[in-house]
C-alpha cells in the first residue's frame, strides 16, 4: 500500500480548538510539514503567541514556549542567542505582531536575528472576539470599528512585509495566502524558504500568511475564502518582498 498523505509527525495527535473554517489548522500543518521535511523537530523551539494560536504549544511536538502578548520575537532572541545551532520560530497574529509587539518585531528584524516568523494576518483580533487589528482594512467593520475603519480617526493598516523588508537585517520576507490549493502550495514553499534562511544563517526571515476568520468576519468558511481573495489580496499583494540570497532584491509589482 502506498501512503499518499498523512498527518505530519511534528504535530501532536489531538483535537485543535480552532473554529470551523479557520485557516490556522492549515498553517500549523504547513509549518509541521516543513519541520518534518528538514528533519529538525528535535532541534526546534517554537514560540506561541497570545491570540487564537495561544494553545499552539500543545499542538507542535517540538519544544515550545508560551510568550507574553507581542513579545515572541524577544523570547526567540533569548532562545536563539542561547542555542545558536537550534531552530527557533515564532507564530504570531496581527494584533500580537503589528500592534502590541511592533517594537519587538522591528528590532528582531533589524538585528538580523536568525529566527523565522510565521505571521498570520486575518485583519482582526480573533480570540477576544473580533476587534479592530492594525491590519484591519479601511472600511472594515469590526466590534471596535462598528461604522467601518475610518482612516481619518483609526489610521491606516500596517503593511508588515513591506515595512520589514526595508530593514537590512531582514533576509527573507514573503506574503502568501491560504485561500486556495495553489496558494497553500506557495505558502509551504515560502515557509520552507524561511527556515532555510535560518539554517543558512542569512538573517531574519518572515512569512506573512493572509488567513481567514469566518467567525469574527461573520461569513461562512467558503465566503470567507472569497472575501480574503477579493479584499485582502488587493490591499496586501502576495509575493516575495525580500530575498537576500536571490540576485538583487525581488520586488513585488
Amino acid at each position, binding site marked *: 500500500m502506498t501512503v499518499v498523505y498523512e498527518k505530519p509527525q511534528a504535530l501532536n495527535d489531538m483535537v485543535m480548538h480552532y473554529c470551523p473554517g479557520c485557516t490556522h489548522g492549515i498553517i500549523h500543518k504547513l509549518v509541521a510539514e516543513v519541520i518534518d521535511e528538514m528533519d529538525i*523537530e*528535535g*532541534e*526546534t*523551539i517554537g*514560540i506561541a503567541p497570545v491570540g487564537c494560536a*495561544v494553545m499552539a*504549544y*500543545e499542538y*507542535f*511536538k*517540538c*519544544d*515550545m*514556549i*508560551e*510568550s*507574553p502578548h507581542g*513579545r515572541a520575537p*524577544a*523570547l*526567540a*532572541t*533569548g*532562545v*536563539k*542567542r*542561547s*542555542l545558536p545551532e*537550534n531552530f527557533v520560530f515564532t507564530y504570531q497574529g496581527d494584533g500580537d505582531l503589528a500592534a502590541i509587539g511592533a*517594537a*519587538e518585531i*522591528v*528590532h528582531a528584524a533589524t538585528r538580523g536575528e536568525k529566527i523565522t516568523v510565521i505571521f498570520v494576518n486575518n485583519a482582526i483580533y480573533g480570540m477576544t472576539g473580533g476587534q479592530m487589528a492594525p491590519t484591519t482594512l479601511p472600511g472594515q467593520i469590526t466590534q471596535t470599528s462598528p461604522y467601518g475603519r475610518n482612516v481619518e480617526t483609526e489610521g491606516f493598516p500596517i503593511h508588515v512585509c513591506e515595512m520589514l523588508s526595508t530593514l537590512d537585517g531582514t533576509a527573507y520576507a514573503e506574503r502568501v495566502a491560504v485561500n486556495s490549493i495553489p496558494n497553500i502550495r506557495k505558502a509551504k514553499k515560502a515557509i520552507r524558504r524561511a527556515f532555510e534562511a535560518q539554517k543558512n544563517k542569512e538573517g531574519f526571515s518572515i512569512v506573512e500568511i493572509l488567513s481567514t476568520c469566518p467567525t469574527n468576519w461573520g461569513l461562512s468558511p467558503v465566503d470567507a475564502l472569497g472575501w480574503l481573495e477579493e479584499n485582502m489580496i488587493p490591499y496586501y499583494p502576495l509575493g516575495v518582498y525580500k530575498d537576500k540570497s536571490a540576485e538583487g532584491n525581488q520586488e513585488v509589482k
Partner: protein
Amino acid sequence: MTEKQAERVLMKGNEAMAEAAIQAGCRHFFGYPITPSTEIAAYMSKRMPKVGGTYLQAESEVAAINMVLGAAAAGVRVMTGSSSPGISLKSEGVSYLAGCDLPCVIINVQRGGPGLGGIQPSQADYWQATKAWGHGDFQILVYAPSTVQEMVNLMMEAFDKADEYRIPALMLVDGLLGQMMEPIAFPEKDLSTIPAKPWATNGHKHKREHNIVNSLCLKPDELEQQVIARFARYDIIKAKEAQAEEYLVDDADIVLVAFGATARTTRSAIDMAREKDIKAGMIRPITLWPFPEKVIQKAANTAQCFLSVEMSMGQMIDDIKLAINCTKPVHFYGRTGGMVPMPVDILGKIEELARGLK
C-alpha cells in the same frame, strides 16, 4: 566559598556585580541603559565577548526582560540590570517568569521616584520588590547587600538559589552602592554544582517528550493547584533562606532595622549612641523576601522599641510591625527623593526615642 585575599581589587559596585555574575557562570546579559545602573551594561558589553558570552542591548526594558525569559527557558544562566523606572517596565516579564517557574537574576539599582524621579539613591522600590512586582500571586527572592563585597557574594548566591528553587532573584541595591568603590575579592566559584535543567526548552532531540514553558492555565481548579504548589515552595524558601545580620542587638533597648546603604549610616549612628550610653542595636535584613521575621521576633523579647530607617517614606516598617504583631512600638526615620539619612540625623532620632524610655 573561600575568598582569595591576595587578589583584592578596587571595583565599583555595579561592575563588581557584573563580574560576579560572569564568575557565577552567567553568559547572557540583556539590558537597556539607565542611570544609575548603566555601568552594569557597559561592563557586560566589554567582558561578555571575551568569555564567549552574549551582551545584547535590547530595544526596550520590556524586550530585555522577555529576552531573559527566552534564555532562561533555554536553560542558561541569564540576567538583566536596570533602575527603578526601567524595573517598572519589566513587571510584565517578571510575572511571566514567576508563572513559568524560570530562574534568572535581575538587578535594580534604585533611584528616587515616583515617575522619572531623580537619579540619586533610594530604597522606595521596597514594596514593589517584595510585594507587587507584577500581576498575580507570586514572590521572588530579594537580596539587599550593603557592601561591594556582599554585592559580589550575594550575586553568586542569587544565581544558585534562583536555579535551586526555579524562581527569579532580585538584587535590590541603590545608586549609592552601585556607584561606590570598595576593595573586594572574588570567591572561588564551583560551577559544577549548577543543577541540571531537564525542563528546559532546548530541543528534545527525540530523546524525551516535548517540553513546554508556559504560564497559561485556563482551568481555575488546576491554576489554583499550580499556585498552591508554588506557595509550598515559597514556604520552604521562607524557612531556609531568610538572612539577617545582628549588630549589638542582645542588650539593645532600641533596635534599629535598616538594609543596604542605609544600614551603613545606621551602624555609625549606633556607635555614636553607644558612646552616649544609649543601648541601641541594629538588625540588618540581608534578604528582604523572605523577610527575616524570626530575628526580629526574637529581638522583640528584649527590645523596648524598634526604629525602621529607610530611604523612603516608610515601606519596610510594615513588615517589621507584621513580624512582631505590633507587640512593641515601631518608629520610623527616613529620607526620600534621593536624600541619604546621615548618622547624626539618625542619632537624633535615637536620642529622642531614648528620652521616652523608662
